[in-house]
Every structure is written in structure tokens, then in C-alpha cells.
């Protein structure tokens, strides 16, 4: 790899995320060493030490690349996102959460109060009588303590800051991560605003399972049926979001006999991934009787979970009202 005049200045950070994206970067294996050789990693909490003030001390635009994974759920997420945006030339929404809200986005079905109630007050694992709820500001002897303020809902990253590129996936496929980094390093980047590190079709395009007749009389959850290993899962009545999900993931889930959950987000021209899943899945229900149709569709539990497993915060309506 050609040595740049100046080492690439990069940062990796996380918002509301599980950490899987960071692990995925590490999953590039030896390649990460090339990265280290090629670039100065200025901030990456999971791997190296770093403080807010280090970032604050940077010049605006000093960073060549920021890979930001995670959604925005609290004031800290927003603060650091805006800070890194200011300090970076290219900011990438990295992984499903940053891209389309991800799993944290599912929390948009409930209110902040419900979440706090569930997490800190009414939960079987909480000792009865314990009424401790974290407060944004606590007064102790030493003075006032502040923790980030939890927002009422989850935002995808580009709701908060302008984003240059998106790398989808929960987590992004290591091979795709490599491609992105190489592209940045070589300046071989597509138009701003593009999704990179993914295909332009859907998961079906890469899926090896054969597809035949599309007529469904009954839906199953994966454990309810003995799968035909080579046949399309949707055809077998297992709701697979593959047909409505951008390709590029390497068909990891269907290849593992699990249906696609849609982490790569909608196909390029799709405006709302969940609406498309609803439309496609319901269209192929094999019945003309309203009662039977209802019965068949009832076998799909938790429609939000199927339609917007990763994309609720990026969906048209974004949250429950």
C-alpha cells in the first residue's frame, strides 16, 4: 500500500450501540494492522484511550475520517457526534444503528418514561422497594454530578449531524469495512450521501436458496418448522426480510438457516423498508377470504419487529405517537 504524504487521521466512536460494530472492525483481522500502519487512530474508546478534551483540542476538520457507530439516544451521543462532525472531513454513519437507528430504534415504540419504569422500577430483577432512577443531575457533597440526559426517542445519526457516507450492517461485514477504508484511503469515494460497503440490490440476489412459487398458507417462526435447506425461507412461510433488504451482507443469516432481519436497510429506491416488507409478504398470502387472510397473518407476531427490526428510527413515521 502506498505511503501517504501524511498519515490518515481517523477516529472511531460509538453512540447508542452494542459495541458489535467495533468488534467487526477488529474482525478485519490482520487488516487492522495495515490500518494502524496507514493511519493515526486518534480516538477509539474500545481499543485505545481517549478523552473528550483530546477531541475538543483538535482543529476543525483535522480528522480525515470518523466512523461513528450507534444511534443517538442521549445528550452525550449528540454532543460527541456534533463535536466529531466539526473535527472531521468525512463522517461515516457506521453500522445499522448510525445508518437507520438499528436495534435501539425499536425503543421508539415506547416512551422514555416507560423505558425508565421498566429498567429501574418495575422489573422482576429489581429488589422490591428500590426506587432509584438515574437523574441527569445529582447533588452530592462534592458538588453537582451530571450524567447524559436520555432523550425521548432514538434518532439515527443523520437526524443530528450531516453525514457523508453510510455503511450499513449489524454489524457491517468485515470485508465491506475493508473496502470502505481502502476507498477512503485512496480517495476513491462515490458521491456524498451514498451508502458504501454494500450492494445495490437485495439479499435475495446473493442468496443461494432456490425460489419457486410464492404462495403462503401459513407463516412459521424459524423454530416451528423443519426447513428445506435449499429452498427460499419466505417460500417456506418464514418471514425473511431479504427481499426488502439491501445486499452486501454476504447472506449471513439465511446461510445460517435464519431469516434475514433487514440490518442492511432498504434497497436503494425503497422509501420505507417496513412498508415494503408488509406489502411483499402480504401480497403472497394465498387466500381470498378476509377471515382466512387475518388468520394467516396472525401467525406473524410483533409486526414492528419484522418490518422495522433495524429501521424504525429511519422509517417514515419514525416512532409511535
Amino acid at each position, binding site marked *: 500500500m502506498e505511503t501517504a504524504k501524511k498519515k490518515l487521521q481517523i477516529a472511531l466512536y460509538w453512540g447508542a450501540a452494542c459495541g458489535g460494530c467495533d468488534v467487526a472492525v477488529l474482525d478485519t483481522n490482520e487488516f487492522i494492522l495495515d490500518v494502524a500502519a496507514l493511519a493515526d487512530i486518534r480516538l477509539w474508546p474500545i481499543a485505545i484511550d481517549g478523552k473528550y478534551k483530546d477531541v475538543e483540542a483538535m482543529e476543525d476538520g483535522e480528522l480525515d475520517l470518523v466512523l461513528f457507530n450507534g444511534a443517538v439516544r442521549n445528550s452525550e451521543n449528540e454532543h460527541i457526534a456534533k463535536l466529531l462532525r466539526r473535527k472531521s472531513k468525512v463522517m461515516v454513519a457506521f453500522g445499522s444503528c448510525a445508518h437507520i437507528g438499528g436495534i435501539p430504534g425499536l425503543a421508539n415504540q415506547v416512551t422514555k418514561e416507560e423505558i425508565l419504569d421498566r429498567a429501574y422500577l418495575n422489573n422482576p430483577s429489581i429488589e422490591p422497594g428500590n426506587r432509584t432512577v438515574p437523574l441527569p443531575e445529582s447533588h452530592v457533597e462534592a458538588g453537582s454530578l451530571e450524567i447524559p440526559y436520555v432523550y425521548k426517542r432514538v434518532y439515527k445519526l443523520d437526524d443530528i449531524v450531516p453525514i457523508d457516507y453510510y455503511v450499513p450492517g449489524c454489524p457491517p461485514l468485515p470485508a465491506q469495512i475493508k473496502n470502505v477504508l481502502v476507498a477512503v484511503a485512496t480517495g476513491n469515494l462515490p458521491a456524498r450521501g451514498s451508502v458504501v460497503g454494500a450492494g445495490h440490490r437485495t439479499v435475495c440476489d446473493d442468496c443461494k436458496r432456490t425460489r419457486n412459487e410464492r404462495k403462503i398458507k401459513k407463516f412459521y417462526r424459524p423454530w416451528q418448522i423443519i426447513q428445506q435447506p435449499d429452498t427460499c425461507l419466505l417460500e417456506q412461510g418464514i418471514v425473511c426480510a431479504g427481499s426488502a433488504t439491501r445486499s452486501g451482507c454476504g447472506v449471513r443469516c439465511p446461510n445460517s438457516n435464519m431469516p434475514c432481519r433487514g440490518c442492511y436497510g432498504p434497497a436503494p429506491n425503497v422509501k*420505507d423498508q417496513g412498508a415494503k416488507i408488509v*406489502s411483499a409478504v402480504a*401480497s403472497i398470502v394465498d387466500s381470498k377470504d378476509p377471515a382466512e387472510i387475518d388468520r394467516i*397473518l396472525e401467525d406473524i407476531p410483533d409486526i414492528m419487529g419484522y418490518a422495522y427490526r433495524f429501521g424504525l428510527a429511519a422509517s417514515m*413515521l419514525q*416512532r409511535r*405517537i
Partner: protein
Amino acid sequence: MANGFEPKIVGFLCNWCSYTGADLAGTSRIKYATNLRVIRTMCSARIDPTFILKALLEGADGVLICGCHPGDCHYVEGNYKAMRRFPLLKRLLDAYGIENERVQLEWVSASEGRRFAEVVDRMTEQIKALGPCKVRTALDFDMAER
């Protein structure tokens, strides 16, 4: 509640039945509420769930979907596709907190001008009772205040 509130309802109508039925209501001079804004599609099967979400996002207080009566589709069975998508869409909307009456599916044939007018009137009244749909304001609020 909602005194003087005039909802905006977007109607997606099949060209061959309900749109023609709406035209028939016109030629028959049957009066009905002014709240519906009709968008013509060739078949109820073309009415994408995305359109309904889009309409709600843009500030519609209600969405009416009309197709041919089951068994009577101009495209043989396009309306069955609408029929299948609707319950799943309704579950989605329910999860979004959209009240049940806001999005309705009705079968109205080309000869049912009067019924079309009745459907529009009934739905307008129901939505007036519900008040404005909060989607647009809620999302605007989200961006203004976390």
C-alpha cells in the same frame, strides 16, 4: 372536541370502480364532505402501504383506500392484494399509535355513487371526532426538542 376542525383525508381510489363511483356521485349531484383529496390509481393493488405512511407523514388526518368489491376486480384479483396487505398494514399503524379509524379500506363499485358519498361522510365525521393526526407535529417536535 376539535371544534371547527376540518380534517384532510387522502383517498386512494381504483380507477375502474371507486373513482368511477365518485364520478357517479358527481353526475348524480350527491353532496358529501369536502375533506377528501382523491388520488387515482389504476387498481387498489397499486396502493402501496408506503403511500399511506407518506400521506400521514405529510399531515393527512386520514387515509381512505377504495377498491372494487371482492370478486369484481377489473384486473381479476388486484383487490385481493389490497385486501391482504391491509390487515398487516393496520397492525403496523396500530403499533405506530395511529388510531384505527384513520386508515380505512372500503369496497365501492362504479355504481355506488351514493355509497361513496356515505363512506366519505362517515369517515369525515369519525376523523373529526378523533381530532388532528399528530404524526407531523410529533416529528416536527422531535427535531425541535429532544
